[in-house]
């Protein structure tokens, strides 16, 4: 089982306590009504699908309950680092 470091608990915890919550660092547009349908569609549905280094949101839902960001390699499934939500992209 993979161990994931939760930046809030500051501990390595088993993978099944966590849930993946999609791509990280997607900022909600400040003025959605000014956007075209294509831009809005892009914000809502279009996600990166890299082979390799990927920034993701994870939630420690069977632990402290917090969302945080993680950098995971999509090929090896290795977690490079995890950091608290709100911190700059690594």
């Amino acid at each position, binding site marked *: 089982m993979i161990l994931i470091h939760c930046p809030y608990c*500051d501990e390595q*915890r088993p993978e099944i306590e966590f849930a993946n919550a999609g791509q990280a660092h997607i900022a909600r547009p400040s003025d959605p009504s000014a956007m075209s349908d294509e831009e809005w569609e892009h914000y809502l549905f279009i996600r990166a699908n890299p082979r390799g280094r990927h920034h993701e949101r994870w939630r420690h839902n069977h632990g*402290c*309950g917090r969302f945080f960001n993680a950098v995971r390699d999509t090929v090896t499934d290795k977690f490079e680092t995890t950091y608290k939500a709100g911190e700059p992209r690594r």
Partner: protein
Amino acid sequence: MSEALVRSDPIPAGPFLGRDASLKAAPRLARYVLRARASAAVEKVLGAQIPTAIGGFANGVACLGPDEWLMFASDGRESPVDESGSVSVTEVSDRSVGIILEGARAAEILATGCPLDLDHFAVGRATRTIYETVEIVIVREAMDRFHIEVWRSFAPWLWTALTTAATE
């Protein structure tokens, strides 16, 4: 009709005695979830020191998250009152039931479904975690004694799983 209504408990009232381990229902407790941005606000409401690090347990209060505390108190204790408006107090006494797992094989039995590294889970720590697919809160009261909190509707299943593990 009402005379046909009976109270049914999710887990048996009597203990289960296995080899080097026993399981029993914890006494009835009052439980409160306290949410606040600052631990100082919670301490003011309770008038007692509370753990600030996640996983800490002191004075019947477990720190489950950066802004979340779970408080155990004796049955019938009145709800803590927050006058400042900075602490959210929710009574959850009947949401979960407690199971006491005790004996030399306690950690081994819990480890049958709980993926935590219990060898490094010190006495006096508390955390929310998972047993198979059921969310639980565990408090390690002694090396060989765990208090397990589980939601009422999951309790019969967890009781069966733990007693089965204890029989193996």
